[in-house]
């Protein structure tokens, strides 16, 4: 793979931004608003990894909560016996395996089957888990005691975000990324050009599933006490979808543009009018589909191109 000079500069700039962001917890009085920054970082990671799969393929995945819950439980159940970094790895593997199974059953069929299947997946796992714990395990919830503060969780999420951006960038440049864009454009064309359509989709879905599971594992210490209804909360899946769509899925940085404003608005509404959050979510979905189908990043890109055209600047 060849790197152009722009690529190198861009990489250096991104690393610099992350380096600066990593100092956030050192700012005096950070403890208060770190409780908002952590969810924003979490949603950014989830929405970006969601868009890596769903952006080019147009398969709307609502399985985020299921992966997240599986990751959280991996950590909660293994914390006493397995070293922490290994648990994160286990969460990633479990998330990937789960995504492979779900993908194998549904991704060969049309998008509708996939949406419906993932829609109930979190609820399904929650039911089975609750039943298992009621009948075999004894207690329902699990305690997660660690020494981690919000800052530790924030740094881990930041590192994961960097990894997700790197992976997303590599995928975009690889044969797989090329294949997936063709599939998104026209699946039968892709098939006729000799692309293994199902396999490509499953691999990307596994990436997104692994990331969501790791995020679940990282976030588990923040809950302290985990029970199925909380770990497998289906609302999370919808939050991720709406943020990614609001931001736009055509660029890797798109979901970020959706996660920040939506998480802030959500925070304000949830603390002032807690009963109206569902309404907000519904209206946001309608707004995005009807008025900004390409997301905020789509709007930004259009302005950018218009501005350049007005200045008479062409691509060299």
């Amino acid at each position, binding site marked *: 793979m060849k790197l152009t000079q722009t690529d190198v500069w861009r990489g250096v700039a991104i690393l610099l931004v992350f380096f600066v962001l990593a100092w956030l917890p050192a700012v005096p009085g950070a403890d208060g608003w770190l409780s908002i920054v952590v969810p924003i970082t979490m949603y950014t990671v989830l929405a970006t990894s969601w868009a890596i799969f769903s952006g080019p393929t147009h398969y709307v995945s609502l399985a985020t909560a299921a992966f997240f819950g599986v990751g959280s439980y991996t950590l909660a159940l293994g914390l006493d016996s397995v070293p922490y970094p290994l648990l994160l790895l286990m969460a990633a593997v479990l998330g990937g395996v789960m995504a492979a199974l779900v993908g194998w059953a549904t991704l060969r069929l049309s998008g509708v089957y996939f*949406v*419906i299947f993932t829609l109930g997946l979190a609820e399904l796992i929650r039911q089975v888990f609750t039943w298992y714990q009621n009948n075999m395990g004894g207690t329902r919830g699990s305690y997660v005691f660690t020494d981690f503060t919000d800052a530790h969780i924030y740094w881990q999420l930041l590192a994961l975000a960097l990894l997700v951006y790197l992976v997303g960038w590599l995928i975009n440049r690889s044969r797989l990324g090329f294949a997936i864009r063709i599939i998104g454009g026209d699946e039968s064309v892709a098939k006729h050009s000799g692309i293994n359509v199902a396999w490509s989709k499953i691999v990307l879905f596994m990436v997104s599933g692994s990331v969501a599971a790791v995020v679940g594992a990282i976030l588990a210490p923040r809950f302290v006490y985990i029970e199925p209804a909380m770990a497998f909360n289906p609302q999370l899946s919808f939050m991720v979808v709406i943020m990614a769509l609001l931001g736009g899925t055509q660029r890797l940085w798109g979901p970020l543009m959706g996660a920040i404003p939506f998480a802030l608005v959500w925070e304000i509404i949830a603390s002032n009018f807690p009963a109206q959050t569902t309404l907000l979510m519904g209206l946001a979905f309608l707004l995005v589909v009807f008025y900004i189908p390409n997301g905020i990043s789509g709007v930004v890109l259009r302005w950018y191109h218009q501005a350049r055209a007005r200045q008479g600047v062409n691509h060299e």
Partner: protein
Amino acid sequence: MQILITGIFLGGVYAIIAVGLSLQYGVSRIMNLAVGEMLVAGAFAAFWFSTAQSLNPYLSLLVVIPVAFCANWLIYRYLLLPLVRRAKTRGQLEVDSILVTFGLSFTLVGIFLWAFGGQFFNYSFLSVPVEIFDSRYGQNRVLAFAIAFVVCAALWIWLNHTRSGLSMRAISVDTRAASLVAIDVEKSSNFAFALGGAIAATGGMVLSTFLTFDASIGIVFTLKALVIVIMGGVGDIRGAIVAALVLGITETVVARLIDPGLTLAAAYVLFLLILLFRPQGLFGRAQT
């Protein structure tokens, strides 16, 4: 035997909702994920009639059916038709309609929560036992099944023995060919969507006579209806009815013999089996 009959009664009510959705998906090509909220709206109307007005909840159908019909007609005309016109491919329409009906679903749940609050609702209607084959069943359930039977039979006769029903079936087979033989596809799709919504609201009204519900329960029924529609084959009313009975019986068996907490898991196992072995539905033909 008792389990079987209870299951069939439950399946009958599922069938009402599923045929409504099947009509919307088969003819109008909209995978309506807000169908459960139509159901909850019907349930709330019945609740209001029964408790606030002390009237027979079934009287609420006189209001529920026309209101739901008009509301769904407007939803299709002003929210969904622009998407149908905008969509370049079937896949594009699918994604858009899924997102919009999700938005609609959340918006409606938000409005229900605002208007009625988050608590559980139920009322008592005809909870008098009746004996069938030496076992006791609630009269409300028997009546619900009778209503389901009437709705499904009427829909069946309309689709198979009338001219307008024929044009609906033509659209569900091939939209473009239907417009070639002078069927007004947009108008018929609009009608089918409105009728499907009205049927789903009727299902919700009937369901509320024996089931405790709350503002956000719609999604559970949406999911069940989707599983039924796919199991029965898209747009296939007969398949949907059979699949609804299968689901009703399976759920009852699982709830009685294993654990009531696993009903959704049971529906999912059925769904998975269908996806793996007969993705075209029980009676569907494989696509060429």
